[in-house]
């Protein structure tokens, strides 16, 4: 889209996108000031699914908040479980056995693949293609079956505990996961790349659309595939390693173009890297217990603690303030999508509406995570 756009700010109308709209991936409202099909000003309005997670954290104990973490970003719920478990384990000084760390990594990476598959399906649905959704959901059902064996839930997992995980994995899970890795590796080049990634319609719709520069990412605090699609090599698993990620050999895909195609390619490559991590974790899986020693009623030492984990959407931070009591005194959830969406207003100016929706899809939004 290199044609210069001359906007007429005196001949505009206001168009309301959402909160009920198939393309907004949840209840997001965007107040668009339009000049014909071009956007003059875009203002996202949030809060339509604000569910008071930070207040509920203060109201209950540390353990009582664990189910809430899954409801924020339900697509990568295990990573949200992980972030909360990490910060409380830091604050209370709880040790996690090695087998539990490996199981955490395997399940979190499986969930990351499921999240990227659903993003892929929803993104293409926005662009007008329905069939990829059926293929992606097929693979996603395989992952959900595996995780359901172990965690008991299909979507909103509450699997991690302070000190480990509550249920061990069995041999059928391990053979099932290996079979899934083989299956997905076979399907990725044929179905995902031949059918969709190299499709001329997709390329024309998302190449050179929604350019985000690296400096914009820094000024708005965008992390995750949005930053990696703009040439910034930042992944919490490599830059601020936690759990047993240093044991694995995996790459961080970085694409410098900054357009929607780059963000798309980052996520597709991340699926392959996650498969690598899961394979290595299954090979190196040690024996031992899956729960460490943790007191029944946690009362961490007073102080300010922070933990960062890499979710499918970016760096999730938990800023925890403890006062020595059994409830958290204050929990600030640093949501990656909140920061990613804040650059929408600046980037969407001058874009065609259809391109702006393609750009929004490439940002991978999950609104309950923004509104918490």
């Amino acid at each position, binding site marked *: 889209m290199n044609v210069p756009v001359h906007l007429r700010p005196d001949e505009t109308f206001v168009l309301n996108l959402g909160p009920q709209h198939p393309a907004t991936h949840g*209840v997001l409202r965007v107040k668009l000031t339009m000049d014909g099909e071009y956007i003059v000003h875009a203002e996202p309005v949030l809060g339509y699914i604000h569910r008071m997670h930070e*207040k509920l954290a203060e109201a209950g104990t540390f353990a009582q908040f664990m189910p809430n973490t899954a409801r924020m970003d339900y697509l990568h719920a295990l990573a949200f479980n992980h972030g909360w478990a990490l910060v409380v384990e830091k604050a209370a000084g709880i040790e996690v056995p090695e087998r539990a760390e490996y199981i955490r990594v395997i399940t979190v990476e499986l969930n990351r693949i499921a999240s990227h598959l659903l993003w892929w399906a929803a993104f293409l649905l926005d662009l007008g293609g329905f069939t990829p959704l059926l293929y992606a959901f*097929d693979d996603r059902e395989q992952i959900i079956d595996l995780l359901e064996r172990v965690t008991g839930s299909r*979507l909103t997992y509450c699997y991690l505990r302070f000190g480990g995980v509550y249920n061990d994995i069995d041999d059928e899970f391990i053979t099932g996961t290996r079979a899934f890795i083989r299956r997905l590796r076979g399907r990725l080049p044929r179905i995902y790349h031949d059918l969709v990634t190299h499709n001329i319609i997709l390329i024309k719709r998302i190449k050179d659309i929604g350019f985000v520069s690296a400096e914009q990412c820094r000024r708005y605090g965008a992390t995750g595939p949005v930053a990696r699609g703009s040439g910034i090599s930042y992944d919490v698993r490599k830059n601020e390693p936690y759990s047993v990620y240093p044991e694995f050999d995996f790459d961080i895909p970085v694409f410098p173009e900054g357009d929607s195609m780059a963000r798309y390619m980052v996520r597709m490559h991340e699926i392959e890297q996650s498969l690598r991590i899961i394979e290595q974790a299954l090979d190196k899986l040690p024996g031992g217990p899956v729960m460490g020693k943790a007191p029944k009623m946690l009362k961490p030492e007073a102080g300010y603690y922070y933990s960062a984990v890499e979710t499918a959407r970016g760096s999730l931070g938990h800023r925890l303030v403890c006062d020595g009591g059994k409830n958290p005194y204050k929990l600030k959830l640093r949501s990656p999508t909140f920061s990613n969406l804040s650059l929408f207003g600046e980037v969407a100016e001058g874009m065609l509406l259809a391109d702006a929706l393609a750009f929004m899809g490439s940002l991978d939004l999950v609104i309950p995570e923004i509104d918490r």
Partner: protein
Amino acid sequence: MGEENVPTSVVQFAQLDTLLNLCRANSLWPMTFGLACCAIEMMCTGGSRFDISRFGAEVFRPSPRQSDVMIVAGTVNKKLELAVRTLYDQMPEPKWVIAMGNCAISGGPFKVKENYNVIEGVDKLFPVDVYIPGCPPRPEALLEGIMTLEEKITGKRRWPRVQAGC
């Protein structure tokens, strides 16, 4: 109090009504009203494994004016309340509402003392026909909810009820 048959329209077609109800029940067009986590299970139900299309309900319409049933999948907020009411009013008769998930039934995990923002159940806003509990309910539960709604519309159940223990 006893059961009462309240006619839904002024004009009654007698036997033709049975046929019309059968047609309506087997082609329920839901409105895409996935708000939160339950929306993903609704999408899974639309996928090929659980296949809501066998029940005629795969045509999710974005516009309320073209849909029969509003599946409220997710939490309704004080900020969203007016929008939800407007959407319900915009749906043409005959219309039904399925409250999917604990949040839509009663506020779910957010029905606590500190609740300042969540509406505790969509039946506070408009009448609900079928409640599907779960957090989130399995796709099979949503299909059972659709079948219960069909039973409510036609008076007959399409699938035999599964008995536990056999």
